[in-house]
């Protein structure tokens, strides 16, 4: 009986026309499709639906409440002629590039050190990962105190007798963004380290033995053999770190409030201020649509590489 029904459905699948289409869409792997339905509906309604809503209303003149009156690209024109927005974009790029490079390099180095079968490894791992357990708000407040020229590091070192020592990055318009980078690094590097360490541990011991037999030095093995083999972990880490950078907001609010002046403003804060503070939904949504577009520009090349059809040789 089972054989019979199986061969029947196989016959339909092999057939042609709308019947086959219907079969392929609904009957084939029916239970799997049923199980995936809630997820598919969530994606369609929550993610795709809300994104479409956001993009649509960014072309309207909505204030506190959504309005359907279309104004073309007016919100975008205003956005890109706004000094604060342009400063925010440059800031997030500076922050992004610096913090991405440093977290990856430092995180990888720490992971390599951890990989040397050192003593108390789990203790060190906990210490390095600990800042990640703190929210950005706490991180920001702590570093705000440390870097505050009147109370923190500068004052302490000056009290030690080094009166010419200055460390006023929080009040310095050109350096404040790097103050944010430092706090971000402190918070995020441990996490990158743990991810990469897991990747390192996933490398087969045999590879190491083979490299040793061939007389390849340790650092060369790491750089040219192990690192390329960790591509999956590295890509995942990049995506996690990258998405954290794009939505950077709470750290800025806790640490600098965008100041001094507008020199540490970031796009997410612009979105929040214009959407809620200024009651200009259209402008806020236009800014968030631009942020979404940026994420896509970063993600699409990666998706093309990752999900391209595998060649069977």
């Amino acid at each position, binding site marked *: 009986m089972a054989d019979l029904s199986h061969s029947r459905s196989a016959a339909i699948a092999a057939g042609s026309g709308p019947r086959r289409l219907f079969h392929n869409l609904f009957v084939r792997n029916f239970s799997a499709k049923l199980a995936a339905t809630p997820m598919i509906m969530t994606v369609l309604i929550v993610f795709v639906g809300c994104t479409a809503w956001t993009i649509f209303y960014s072309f309207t003149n909505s*204030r*506190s*409440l959504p309005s359907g009156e279309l104004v073309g690209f007016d919100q975008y024109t*205003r956005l890109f002629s*706004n*000094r*604060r927005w342009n*400063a925010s974009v440059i800031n997030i790029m500076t922050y992004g590039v610096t913090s991405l490079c440093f977290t990856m390099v430092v995180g990888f180095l720490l992971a390599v050190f951890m990989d040397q079968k050192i003593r108390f490894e789990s203790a060190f791992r906990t210490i390095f990962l600990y800042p990640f357990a703190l929210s950005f708000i706490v991180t920001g407040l702590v570093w705000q105190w440390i870097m505050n*020229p*009147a109370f923190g590091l500068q004052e302490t070192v000056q009290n030690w007798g080094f009166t010419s020592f200055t460390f*006023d990055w929080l*009040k310095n*318009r050109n350096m404040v963004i790097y103050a944010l980078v430092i706090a971000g690094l402190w918070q995020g590097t441990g996490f990158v380290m743990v991810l990469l360490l897991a990747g390192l541990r996933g490398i087969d011991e045999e590879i190491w033995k083979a490299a040793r037999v061939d007389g390849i030095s340790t650092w060369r093995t790491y750089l040219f053999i192990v690192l390329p083999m960790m591509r999956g972990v590295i890509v995942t880490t990049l995506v996690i770190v990258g998405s954290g950078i794009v939505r950077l907001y709470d750290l800025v609010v806790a640490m600098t*409030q965008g*100041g*001094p*002046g*507008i*020199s540490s403003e970031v796009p997410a804060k612009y979105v*929040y*201020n*214009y959407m*809620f*503070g*200024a*009651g*200009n939904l259209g*402008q806020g949504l236009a800014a968030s649509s631009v942020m979404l577009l940026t994420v896509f520009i970063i993600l699409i090349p990666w998706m093309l590489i990752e999900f391209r059809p595998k060649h069977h040789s």
Partner: protein
Amino acid sequence: MKKFTVAAAMAAALMCGTSAFATDLEVTHWWTSGGEAAAVAEFAKAFDATGNHWVDGAIAGSSDVARPLIISRILGGNPMGATQLNTGRDAEDLIKAGLMTDLTDLAKSEGWYDVIRPKKLLESCEFEGKLYCVPVNIHSWQWLWLSRPAFEDNGMEVPTDWNQYVADFPKLREAGVIPFSLAQGWPTNGIFGVLLAGVGGTDLFLAVNRDKDVSAVEGPDFRKVAQAYADLRDAVDVNETVGQWNEATAQLINNTAAGNIMGDWAQGEFAVAGKVAGKDYDCLPGLGLNAVLDTGGDAFYFPKNDDPAITEAQLVLAKTMLSPETQVAFNLKKGSLPVRGDVDMSAANACMQKGLKILEDPNGVLPSGEQLLSSDTQQQLQDLEIEFFSDKSMSIDDFVGQFADIMGSAD
């Protein structure tokens, strides 16, 4: 059967009675500094005396933090019993969406239209002829606060206007006193509005904020104001700026700083610290140049509610807030002026008396920027002013040009 009906009626009456009396009403506001908290306690005391219960929903941080929280709670269908919002265009959209309780009938029966002055205060609570909020005080930004000891201890006269004060900056520096205490964020922004009214004059203030006249922005008078703002920027040391406005006031109380431009709510801080107006500190409304006050202020809105008991309590609270006794008690603590002209303010200090006198003169009253400009325009101006104030390399031409652009597109 008859007995049962009577009993049921009595029980129902009893239940109604209890629900009409002890109703809990959550009131959200952002009054958290010492003077503000003392003032809001007067409201709570008066409201509790009516048999209801004031549930305090203070939101720490400035209005920039609290406003989005309050608005999103109302929009999200989880309204509080009553909430503070600045009079102005903030709540217009909420009223349009029908989310606020209509207070028109109460206002008529209480005679608010006759006693509340200036009239603009009630007008800004109105929408299409109906009243939606209760103004509780008159706040004005146009005050220059001066610490008398900071001048007198260093052998200087206490200045009587802005120009003399600015001329004293170098001497104050020499004496080791911070000439101008500054808090980050919105206070920086507020200073510009005060300079606009004080240095620029009433006509310029109205041409810019009310008429959104771009040619006035590009004119010589506005340039003078921008120059004064730039001069102040150059005199302030960034490392001396503090985080909150009340810390800046505290610098005056401790005599470590000589002066500060801040709204009259600063007076609440002086009062809590036990300082006496005219003796420990001085005040110059309109910077001593142009004695005008804007009449913004705080107002309470009452979001619509499904529960009739809450609606009833809302009306009781609205009535309580504007009763003559509460007005006096509240405003003395807050440092602001009462919205009713018919109350006895003889207990007010020297600075408040100056303010009351200006209020009597129709030419002394300015509408506030909040009433004239949308929050969207205010936000853009704030961004510009804060950028200009922090960046000593930004030229006045650049500032004026940007300002004109924003005003040109303001709605």
